[in-house]
């Protein structure tokens, strides 16, 4: 019923994957017109914030990968959920106490009725 896995299989798959990736990479390099070696062709991804772009007044941030933009799509896409979650994390002690009472009340209600 329950599938077991052997950790070594993953290492084999990883190694085979690496070899295939390397071969594909070499093949692409051979058959390319040289565009991968200059300009935007050298970048791994073209979308997202350009780390080499220097914004006036923000020179001190040049070259930063803050990690902020890596999950931008996910955060933006379900922004409402994040806003709702963050709104509840007020940091107020009274809210913490209120949630504790609500939780205990829910558990007691369920256990008294169906327990």
């Amino acid at each position, binding site marked *: *019923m*329950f*599938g*077991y*896995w*052997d*950790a*070594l299989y*993953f*290492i084999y798959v990883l190694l085979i994957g690496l070899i295939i990736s390397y071969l594909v990479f070499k093949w692409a390099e051979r058959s390319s017109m040289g565009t991968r070696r200059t300009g935007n062709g050298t970048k791994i991804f073209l979308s997202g914030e350009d*780390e080499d772009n220097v914004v006036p007044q923000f020179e*001190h941030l040049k*070259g*930063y*990968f*803050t*990690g*902020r933009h*890596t*999950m931008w799509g*996910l*955060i933006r896409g379900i922004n409402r*959920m*994040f806003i709702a*979650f*963050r709104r*509840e*994390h007020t*940091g107020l*002690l009274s*809210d*913490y*106490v209120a*949630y*504790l009472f*609500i*939780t*205990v009340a829910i*558990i*007691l209600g*369920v*256990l*008294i009725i*169906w*327990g």
Partner: protein
Amino acid sequence: MMLPFLIIIPLLGAFSMPIMSLLGEKARNAWAILVSALTLGVASKVFYDVWSTRQLVVYTLGANTPLGKGVNFPIRILWEVDLFGALIALTIAFVGFLAVLYSIEYMKHDTGLDKYYTLILTLELGMLGIVITGDLFNFYVFLEIMSIASYALVAFRNDTWEGIEAGIKYMFVGSLASSFILLGIALLYGQYGTLTMSYLAVKIAQNPTLVGRVALGLLMGGLLFKSGAVPVHMWLSDAHPAAPSSISAMLSGLVIKAGGIYALTRIAFSIYATSINIKTVGWLVIFFGCLTLIVGNAMAVVQTDMKRLFAFSSVGQIGYILLGIGIGLAAYGTKIGDIALAGAIYHTVNHALMKALLFLTAGAVLHEAGTKNLNELSGIAKKMPFTSFAFLVGAAAIVGLPPLNGFASKWLIYESSALYNPFLAAIAVAGTAFCTAAYIRVIFTFFGAPSEAVENAKEPGKAMIVPMLVLITAIIIMGLLPWQINDRIMLPTVDMLKDQLHYVIAVVGGA
């Protein structure tokens, strides 16, 4: 019998710490390491004894038998250890030892370290007491020892308001949760006239009452709070980042497990399993588990404070553990339930190691770069390659990337939840998607172009490197031998935990 030394050694170590401090800094540090190493030795021996014999260890305080003179029921305080308790005790002693070792360098520049080491050993002994006790009031005493030590340790660095505020909030609302637990215990004592867990199981099974159910509700509410389940997790995301990193590793890795998860599991399985509608209890735990794993992991995605991100991630991982325990209860007596419970216990141990490693790496970064703000830590990997590698291993393991230990335990939880109810598995996988997103952001930050804040950063000293190295090794080894560990340790642990009759007979068998 080695069992009493599990409490005696850290207790002696904690209370003799101020005296040892008079002999100098080196003597104090050596004493802290020695005490935690000896505790680890005793915990290993207790675990090996229980594991090799598959027999419960029962120890009565102040007598040879827990039964009273002339009566056939237990009246004394007793400690009762099965494989579950022994396994968690070993985890506590292991991570506790590494946290003490790490503290030697990490806390070097702090003052009041005699108090710090006293508190850290008290914290350890509180947790160890919780996992070995077989008496409900004794459990409460150890829970308070653990809680009070953690309140003080969260606010240990009193030069910042963050720590003091988090400590006060944690103390206030934590005491309220403890009061619920105490009220539950008082109701049980009033109704059934005993505090011995195994005898209580018999009494409740003979006469299940509304009071018994209300007591369980109060206990569950308090223990869910202690384990950091949503929506009573908010103290955790304040307290864990505010504490020194070695303490954060213990709080996130151990305290929420011993004081919350372990106690909840013990009470549900060893006391109530046969005397209540277990499916209802199971679904309640599943409900809170699902809520926890979504909210915890999702909140981790939007954090910019690295330690706060890890704290929310701990909330998320507690969700998986609760999901496993909930399915273990709801599908009690079936193979699916067993596997889910094995996955939950396995993940409890795994998460203790992974989260300890992550908090230790966060501590190393904070120690060297002076910030834990992810927007300022770009490119730290170039300056601290080992620490970044340690982070990478911890992050990969917690996300559940094979072949690391997190995969094995999460797989068991996914598989059993998919078989029990596919909707639960979908929720669990969605939680992992958030978890992955959160850690990828940190990885991008670590491996980006170096910023000014990290210019002067360098690798920490050996006392901080060694604990991280040990945890990396443990995570990789546990990842390479997942099913051996599952078959030889986790499934026997589940069998012993579910064997309520054996748990009762070990104490009242002579009656």
